[in-house]
């Protein structure tokens, strides 16, 4: 292949190094106004009154909006339509927006905000899921599967109890994975304007223009086809720009009311409160094994701190368990999950969405099992890998499975067999593995349309323009799209003109989330390009006197595959086709196949393919200070096929970096102010300085191995690389710390004080383990019983409740903008 697999300058590189990339806050329009949001200083309170007349009269102010202007609820998921652009009647976390000022300048808007008087009636607050479990009233949301419990799930994939009872050994641990935030360098920004025809256009830093489009139509009560959403290139996303956000809807409304363009850019502090980041998750994991460490059953409970709103929560909840079966063969599996509401900014999807937490639990526990049984952790894993082309206990269909070579490469590269357990005190090696989706099998809202669409347009100049709704968030989706079209048509990526992420111009792509873009957009692009190639082959073949099958495309030429000198320039082939057919255009689309999981909740987890990753991390632990320094990382990733090695490696290194941040320092942490100050739950550290993230000085050397075993369902065999490489990092660090100094830190971040506490306990003859002690009692519902394939199951629950789909009230069905 001439393009796929070759190291290339990405198609948008020039714009990025010259400062020409136009991010949302770079959009400047004539007569533009600026908006600012007034955010609640209370974590939980009724809004008694909003006095805004002084703000309305302030200099430069054009408009003041409150919750009264936004009667319609919205939310990313059909089952959690619990947000209003500005709060109505109640605030639920410090930072919840209650009013907005639109003024001639940002400064005047900010000055006027200070003139708005809001009278609150404070309510009792809930700071943690444990508190939520104990507190029935007051309720943060008026829906859910229990008071202050958003979602409760219980799956029995086979009966784990007898399996655990029959196991040679049962290991039980409680783990905690702290919440963290995306910290995209770009603060969210949006510009809304009425176009010359009076329709609404919104430029926004969003990863999901299609979903934003739908939610704008709902929240503004406008037909969707009168709204255009343009996803500007995101200055980093990582999941943090996947929800429809308050400021987007406020700016749109303000543009409609004032008739002027309106920009809202969040401050960094506001971004910390907008959040939607990693859920803090408490986990209890019980695993039964045979004497050689082979898993016979696994029993996992997870408790998620959801924050104050639903966001992607119903999906996040199920992701804390559903992917536990795709790395190792788990014959029987019970999974129970609970997402609680708390008076904190809502959590949502962050790189790895719900799966890094249970992966940490599973991979650290496996290390403990290996140590207890005297096995090499690498061998323990290798002996029980989930087979390729198999179906798991919870009915996920695995296609290609390259974890074995991933493990072998990192074992070899790190000299694991010679060095693990052999390094001097203070230095250690740790291993962990993981797997991730290549696109969620189902869209956010139920429909049977394609998940990704591509249109190609060609004309006599030789121009090839590709239209696709996919969104460039830095991951390189534009480059992948250009590469695939170029590969099929024998062109260079720089020959392809791209139009992406624009709901007026491009066919729908569901968005840059769940590592879906390369696979889904890529397959749609191949289909569109192959159709164009067929048209061009026939016309060029006629001119060359050849059957279409003998016509080949490469080096910007169309030629006889048996006699390459006989041919024509690509552009001449387009001319020939335009003479024969008139205006040229093709389309392609992709929808993943139906999953084998047919039980309620089985929509979360299925993917047409899974990527696999193994990592070995080397650490140096200073026993005097507890400081953990990561000196080197070896990582093997089963990517199926590399489209652009430069970008693929960048995704791996970026994932390792982000995983190290979560492993060692990042915390979206809150504290309750003393009662005399309001008992508010405030973010401890809503600034980039105090929210610790790794800098250039902390980044270790990373050795990356790609395993290329093309997956038949991926474009040219490609699988994902954007999220998977983050997942093994935190557990590998924890396991390396154990190898280095013999203590277990069963939670992240692994901060120096925790390491010191564990070392101190060990020195006193105690266990040398720090981490959460207990998992609270959760009112688990009755299990949904789904027999695994090897126990005669058919993918359905044998006790499926009669009204299964969406027990919660749903306002969603039909298309955007159509009220039901």
């Amino acid at each position, binding site marked *: 292949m001439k393009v796929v697999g070759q190291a290339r*300058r*990405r198609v*948008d*590189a*020039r*714009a*990025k*190094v*010259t*400062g*020409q*990339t*136009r*991010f949302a*806050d*770079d959009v*400047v329009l004539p007569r533009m106004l600026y908006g600012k949001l007034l955010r609640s200083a209370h974590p939980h309170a009724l809004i008694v009154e909003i006095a805004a007349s002084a703000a309305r009269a302030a*200099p430069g102010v054009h408009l003041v909006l409150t919750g009264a202007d936004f009667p319609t609820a919205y939310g990313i998921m059909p089952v959690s339509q619990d947000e209003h652009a500005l709060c109505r009647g109640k605030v639920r976390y410090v930072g919840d927006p209650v009013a907005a000022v639109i003024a001639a*300048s940002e*400064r005047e808007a900010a000055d006027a905000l200070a003139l708005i008087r809001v009278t609150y009636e404070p309510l009792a607050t809930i700071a943690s899921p444990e508190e939520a479990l104990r507190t029935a009233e007051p309720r943060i949301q008026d829906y859910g599967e229990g008071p202050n419990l958003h979602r409760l799930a219980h799956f029995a994939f086979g009966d784990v109890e007898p399996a655990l009872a029959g196991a040679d050994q049962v290991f039980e641990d409680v783990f905690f994975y702290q919440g963290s935030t*995306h*910290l*995209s*360098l*770009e*603060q969210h920004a949006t510009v809304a304007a009425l176009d010359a025809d009076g329709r609404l256009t919104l430029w926004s830093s969003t990863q999901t223009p299609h979903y934003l489009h739908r939610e704008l139509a709902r929240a503004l009560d406008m037909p969707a086809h009168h709204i255009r959403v343009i996803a500007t*290139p*995101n*200055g*980093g*996303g*990582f999941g943090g720009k996947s929800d429809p956000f308050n400021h987007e809807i406020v700016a749109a409304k303000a543009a409609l009311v004032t008739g002027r363009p309106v920009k809202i850019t969040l*401050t*960094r502090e506001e971004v910390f409160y907008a959040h939607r980041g990693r859920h803090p998750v408490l986990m209890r994991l019980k695993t039964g094994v045979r004497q050689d460490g082979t898993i016979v059953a696994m029993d996992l409970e997870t408790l998620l701190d959801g924050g104050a709103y639903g966001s992607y929560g119903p999906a996040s909840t199920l992701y804390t368990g559903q992917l536990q079966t795709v790395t190792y063969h788990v014959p029987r599996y019970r999974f129970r999950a609970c997402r609680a509401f708390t008076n904190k900014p809502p959590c949502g999807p962050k790189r790895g969405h719900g799966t890094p937490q249970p992966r940490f639990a599973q991979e650290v526990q496996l290390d403990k099992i290996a140590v207890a049984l005297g096995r090499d952790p690498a061998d323990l894993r290798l002996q029980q890998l989930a087979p390729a082309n198999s179906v798991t206990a919870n009915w996920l269909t695995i296609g290609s499975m390259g974890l074995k070579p991933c493990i072998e490469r990192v074992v070899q590269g790190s000299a694991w067999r010679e060095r693990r357990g052999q390094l001097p005190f203070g230095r250690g090696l740790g291993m962990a593995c993981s797997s991730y989706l290549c696109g969620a099998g189902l869209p956010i809202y139920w429909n049977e349309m394609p998940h990704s669409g591509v249109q190609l347009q060609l004309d006599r100049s030789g121009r090839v323009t590709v239209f696709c709704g996919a969104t460039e*968030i*830095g*991951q*390189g989706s534009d480059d992948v799209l250009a590469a695939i079209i170029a590969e099929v048509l024998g062109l260079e990526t720089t020959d392809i003109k791209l139009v992406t992420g624009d709901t007026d111009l491009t066919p729908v792509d569901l968005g840059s989330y769940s590592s879906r873009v390369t696979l889904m957009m890529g397959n749609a692009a191949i289909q569109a390009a192959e159709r164009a190639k067929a048209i061009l082959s026939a016309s060029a073949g006629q001119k060359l006197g050849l059957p279409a099958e003998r016509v080949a495309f490469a080096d910007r030429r169309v030629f006889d595959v048996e006699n390459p000198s006989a041919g024509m320039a690509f552009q001449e082939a387009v001319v020939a086709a335009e003479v024969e057919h008139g205006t040229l255009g093709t389309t392609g689309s992709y929808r993943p196949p139906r999953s084998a999981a047919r039980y309620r909740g089985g929509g979360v987890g299925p993917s047409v393919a899974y990527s696999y990753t193994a990592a070995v991390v080397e650490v140096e632990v200073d026993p005097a200070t507890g400081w953990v320094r990561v000196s080197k990382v070896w990582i093997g990733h089963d990517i199926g096929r590399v489209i652009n090695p*430069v*970008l693929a*490696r*960048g995704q791996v*290194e*970026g*994932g*390792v*970096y*982000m995983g190290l941040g979560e492993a060692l320092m990042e915390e979206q942490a809150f504290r309750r102010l003393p009662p005399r100050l309001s008992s508010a739950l405030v973010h401890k550290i809503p*600034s*980039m*300085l105090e929210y610790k*993230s790794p*800098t*250039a*000085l902390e*980044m270790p*050397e*990373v050795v990356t191995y790609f395993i290329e075993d093309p997956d038949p369902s991926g474009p040219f065999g490609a699988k994902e690389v954007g999220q998977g490489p983050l997942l093994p990092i935190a557990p590998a660090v924890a396991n390396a710390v154990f190898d280095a100094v013999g203590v277990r830190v069963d939670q992240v971040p692994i901060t120096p004080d925790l390491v010191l506490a564990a070392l101190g306990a060990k020195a006193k003859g105690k266990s040398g383990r720090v981490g959460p002690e207990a998992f609270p009692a959760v009112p688990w519902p009755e299990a949904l019983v789904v027999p695994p394939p090897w126990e005669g199951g058919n993918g359905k629950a044998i006790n499926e409740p009669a009204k299964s789909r969406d027990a919660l009230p749903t306002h969603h069905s039909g298309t955007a903008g159509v009220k039901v």
Partner: protein
Amino acid sequence: MSPRRDARKARIALTVNGEERDVVFAGYKTLLEVLREDLGLTGTKHGCELGECGACAVLVDGQPVLSCLLLAVECAGADVTTVEGLARGPALSLLQAAFADKGAAQCGYCTPGILVTAQALLERKAHPTRAEIAEALSGNLCRCTGYLQIFEAVEEAARAEPHAQGPAAGRPHVRTEAGA
């Protein structure tokens, strides 16, 4: 309108990317705001406006400076270089070209600040070690790359033969891409 403190305008002359500029702006504005809002140079970014992320770095008299922390009124007579001033005509500088080739810009949001900071490093030290590069860039956060491809790009630019193209506009490291 009442003569409010914020509304008072300031006027300064300065050199931006080699051009004399005379600019009138609200006196409270930072250099970052004046560059982006009053001079239309949106290439320089902001991630915090509190001096914490490095996205807003520009060169003032050759030194990297966080433009969000500097009042524009303090820049009278200064020589300011932003990302827009790195290329010469249509050709990328060697540093820009190396960033493009090595994958040093993913989302590209940190890139303008990192480019000018690295530029200043190379002007100070033609062949920095990796530790020196990391040290120089330790105030510039990048959330996408994990920094390694950025280090490689700076090394690549440093390796490129300094005399091959000759200095552009008197700046030793603003050399342009071969053949471009």
